[in-house]
């Protein structure tokens, strides 16, 4: 099992994902026997505190949407546990889940496919309240009109059909629906990627305001690293079903530890011709391998420019580099000697002869992004401490 960090302040996390696995069986033949499995999410542990925004990034097929769907229990995890406010929800049946659905809502990617074209906007937004028996008809209507105003639409839109709205407006309807039950947690799966740039910015700002006004907690899934940085407090990077890096938002961009994160960041086009020309771009070779038969050891090793022998043999554990910055890599980047020594000394660090020879030798880079001083990371050898 990978590392499970507990919040220091003693607050109970809103959501705990514990060693969750989600495999999809591939069946074939007359008897529909299981011949293989898609390892969509593979042993992933993460916690989300109340009021925070956790960004989830990765390429298509990395399992970020599957994880989002497991969290709101649209999917049942194959293994592991999910705790919502301390209560296990991973194995609950539909009837027991229903009251919990009020607390967790989802915003979907495609504003065209996620609204029923034959229902009026009023019905779409009030249905969740009706299902949960909230208010009478008049109260619900008033509430829907309030919600429409909250998300920047007009209360008169109550009687219209989805096709009368643009993509951005539809996405606002989807947001209003997710807010109808006053949830605590919203899982937003690529909520802006189907929208035009100028509308994207409106949507991101709206979600920001709603979080402040209603004290929402977000799990924000996106592939756009610019949007993720803007909305997130912490960011989790996924690769082929694994959590490979977890970091406070800003630190991930200034000091990526995992080479995959470094490559992802360097691939983002910068809208500035001079900077675009100057910077070094790491172009990853090839595609993401198949999650049916993921590579051995570190799953990123076939595409990694730092990979050595150990990477294909031993799976790197997720270790804490201080300041709540976790990464799973045998050749961490942007880490100073003291932190590295501490990490290698920790019991979680399995490979005996960490091939330090392969570590990127770039002292300038280390100085450019000094590691924030962690409790035991200030140069002393932690192994000497009792």
């Amino acid at each position: 099992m990978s590392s499970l960090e507990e919040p220091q302040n003693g607050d109970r996390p809103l959501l705990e994902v514990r060693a969750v696995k989600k495999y999809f069986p591939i069946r074939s033949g007359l008897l529909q026997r299981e011949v293989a499995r898609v390892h969509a999410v593979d042993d992933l542990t993460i916690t989300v505190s109340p009021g925070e925004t956790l960004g989830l990034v990765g390429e298509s097929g990395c399992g970020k949407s599957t994880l989002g769907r497991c969290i709101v229990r649209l999917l049942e995890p194959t293994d592991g546990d999910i705790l919502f406010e301390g209560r296990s929800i991973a194995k609950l049946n539909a009837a027991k889940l229903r009251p919990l659905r009020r607390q967790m809502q989802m915003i979907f990617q495609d504003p065209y496919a996620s609204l029923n074209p034959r229902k009026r906007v009023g019905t779409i937004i009030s249905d969740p309240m009706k299902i949960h028996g909230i208010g009478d008809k008049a109260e619900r209507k008033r509430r829907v009109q309030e919600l429409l105003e909250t998300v920047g639409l007009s209360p008169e839109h109550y009687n219209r059909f989805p096709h009368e709205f643009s993509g951005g407006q539809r996405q606002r309807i989807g947001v209003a629906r997710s807010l109808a039950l006053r949830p605590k947690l919203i899982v937003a799966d690529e909520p802006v990627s189907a929208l035009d740039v100028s509308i994207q910015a409106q949507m991101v700002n709206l979600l920001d305001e709603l979080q402040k006004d209603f004290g929402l907690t977000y799990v924000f899934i996106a592939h756009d690293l610019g949007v993720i940085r803007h909305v997130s407090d912490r960011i989790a990077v996924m690769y082929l079903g694994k959590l490979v890096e977890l970091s406070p938002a800003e630190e991930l961009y200034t000091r990526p530890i995992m080479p995959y994160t470094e490559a992802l960041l360097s691939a983002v086009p910068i809208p500035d011709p001079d900077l675009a020309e100057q910077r070094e771009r790491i172009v990853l070779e090839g595609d993401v391998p198949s999650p049916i038969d993921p590579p051995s050891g570190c799953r990123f090793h076939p595409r990694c420019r730092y990979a050595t022998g150990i990477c294909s043999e031993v799976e790197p554990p997720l270790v804490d580099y201080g300041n709540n910055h976790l990464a799973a890599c045998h050749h961490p980047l942007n880490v100073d000697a003291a932190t590295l020594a501490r990490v290698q000394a920790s019991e979680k660090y399995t490979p005996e002869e960490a091939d330090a020879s392969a570590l990127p030798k770039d002292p300038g880079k280390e100085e450019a992004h000094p590691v924030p001083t962690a409790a035991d990371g200030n140069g002393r050898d932690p192994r000497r401490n009792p």
Partner: protein
Amino acid sequence: MAERLLEVDGLKVQFATEDGVVRAVDGVDFTLDRGKVLGIVGESGSGKSVTAMTLLGLTRDKNTIFEGEVRYKGQSLLDLPESKLQEIRGNELAMIFQDPMTSMNPVYRVGDQIVEAITTHEDISSRDAKRRAVELLKQVGIPNPERRVDDYPHQFSGGMRQRAMIAMALANNPDVLIADEPTTALDVTIQAQIIELIDRLKDDFNSAVILITHDLGVVAEVADEIIVMYAGRVVEHGGKRPVFYDPQHPYAWGLLGSIPRLDRPRPEKLASIKGAPPSLINPPRGCKFRPRCPHAFEKCHEEPPLANRVEDPGHLDRCWLSVEQKRELREATIRGEVVA
């Protein structure tokens, strides 16, 4: 001076629909020389894709009305008979479409589709054509091209399909390559590969490229010249650096401000453009951007012409504000401090 390949003059494209006439493209002018990359930037409905498809005669229909001129090496394309156009399309002007999942035929092998593109325009044996297809797949970076040439599109990943599309577009060594949002459906890592590929192939094949995108980051990497379109019109046109470092039109400022930048500190709030793009059936009177513009004033009820207003003679814009006013208002608008 490089050879002039394309000249577009006052191009207008209108579609007659049940709801009225859609003015999809309303006055676009540009020229394209060999070896150059022209970036056309705009949101959905700005007319950028219709412009590109019109160059290839893909918008021809009894309900379409064209005005203006499109000349390829001096030859007018708009009134060229379909049979003549077919000789040029795919041969001298080729297109890469946005969606690699739907732009290949799922029931034919990838190789056969490339072979078809070659044999349509060239008298060549199918064995030679197939050899060339393998060579092309190799050039666009498909591993094991000898084997993959016999695969069906569903056996390719999204990035590989887009590479195969590029191979198909390059099959006849076209002079002009039109890429319509070639990377939008792809992951950033694959997007980086494709942009690099287009940039390299442009030199290898000595062609010109029209790159259509909504992503200013993509044009910042490869374009030489940029056109910003809004509601069917060109609102700004100039070299890449002037457009990025001295943008003149408030819509261009809005676009620049809406992108969350990785190279800058995180702002409290993203600058956004209020409202939504206008209807192309009943566009607003005067400047089309007026209803969304934070700096609109009396004069904007009259449409400004696309004209040169700055020192750089190649830099045109369509805005009534004076150059001094623009330079004063610009930074705050891009930072999102000016809200209409």
